């Protein structure tokens, strides 16, 4: 009881409440005290000094020193210390997710397996202009599309957490069943609701030969250990 009485007293004296190990009844008393204290007129407005002070702090951390965006080591260390907690929070918030809010890596890459080989994934006749069809070639599964007569291929695995994408919509797009990210058929990210960055889908090299469509894919599926 001592702890909660002191807690309420701190709140009423506008002091930072001291910590204590609260029981469940303590917690509900604390909750009520907070609600009543917050109902005092004017208590929800921040101090002007706080608002300007935090603005200054953010400016010094967010606006890069001109030019060249170099950050001194000392400043980097200060920053890291200052936001250690914040970083963990951003990590924890990832599940709540939002669209492309966070700088994405400038990747748009072609998947080039080593060793790789050309694998037939469809007959050319089965891929008329403007169509999309899924394919599977050993380790790779993805989507083929013919645009203006040319065939192209893109990975069908979401770059977020590896769920298999599904073809949907008109115009066609690749949608992730796990968190709803959507990619264009050239691999570009269309929308997602993740606070972190989301890379575009890797593309695959495609060729047509002898009436077949081939993609450049890993030469063989993973050999089991012990095999030569």
């Amino acid at each position, binding site marked *: 009881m001592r702890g909660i*009485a002191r*807690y*309420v007293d*701190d709140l009423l004296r*506008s*002091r*930072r*409440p001291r*910590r*204590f*190990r*609260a029981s469940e*009844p*303590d*917690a*509900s*008393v*604390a*909750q*009520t005290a*907070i*609600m*009543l*204290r*917050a*109902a*005092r*007129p*004017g*208590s*929800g*407005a*921040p*101090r002007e000094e*706080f*608002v300007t002070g*935090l*603005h200054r*702090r*953010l400016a010094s*951390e*967010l606006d890069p020193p001109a030019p060249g965006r170099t950050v001194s080591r000392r400043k980097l260390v200060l920053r890291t210390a200052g*936001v250690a*907690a*914040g*970083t963990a*929070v*951003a990590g*924890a*918030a990832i599940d*709540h*997710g*939002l*669209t*492309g*809010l*966070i*700088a*994405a890596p400038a990747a748009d890459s072609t998947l080039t397996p080593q060793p790789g080989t050309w694998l037939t994934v469809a007959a050319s006749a089965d891929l008329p202009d403007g169509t999309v069809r899924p394919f599977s070639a050993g380790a790779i599964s993805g989507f083929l599309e013919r645009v203006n007569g040319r065939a192209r291929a893109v990975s069908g695995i979401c770059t977020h957490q590896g769920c298999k994408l599904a073809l949907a919509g008109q115009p066609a797009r690749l949608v992730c069943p796990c968190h709803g990210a959507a990619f264009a058929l050239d691999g570009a990210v269309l929308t997602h609701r993740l*606070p972190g960055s989301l890379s575009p889908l890797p593309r695959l090299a495609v060729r047509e030969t002898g009436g077949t469509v081939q993609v450049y894919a890993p030469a063989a599926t993973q050999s089991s250990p012990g095999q030569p």
Partner: protein
Amino acid sequence: MRFVRATSPGRCEPPGAPVPAARLRAVTADAYPDWDAVYRDNIGLVYRLMFAKVGNRADAEDLTTEVFLAVLRPLRLPASAGEVRAYLFATARTVLARYWTRTLGQPVTTLNEDPAEVFSAPQLESAAPQRAERILAALPARYRRILQLRFLDACSVAEAAQALGISVTNAKVLQHRALRRAAEIAAAME
């Protein structure tokens, strides 16, 4: 039955204490061009939200700082106000949960509200006083009076005791009982 509205000026507050104007403003623009716009548009909202959840300025300022530091650095702008606010809200929820874990070891308050509702200005302005008023209205008169004096009117124990015509010791006991009763009522209202 008549009792002082929760939104009336506090009788024990220094006369003329200014009630700061709300820093809220409606977001008409669809997108925030830079972090400065995000900050200016949301600092009041986030602080108010945090104050409503922790009930004291020192902690509300620290938690608000934590939220903005975590959110602004990796943010890619321009981004829509809705998206940025949802991200702010999600981060605030995590920050608050960790605060309770390290202070009282209990999730005393949480951010479970619908972010869209929380960030609509009228709702944010009025939720706490309305709820407080409902709970106070359900209390016996003396319980209501002591809580009104202490929490809403910023009276000291001595001032409250004098207003009620009781000793300071009795005022403390009365406040404690009133608060426990109010907590029961609040729980029943959930």
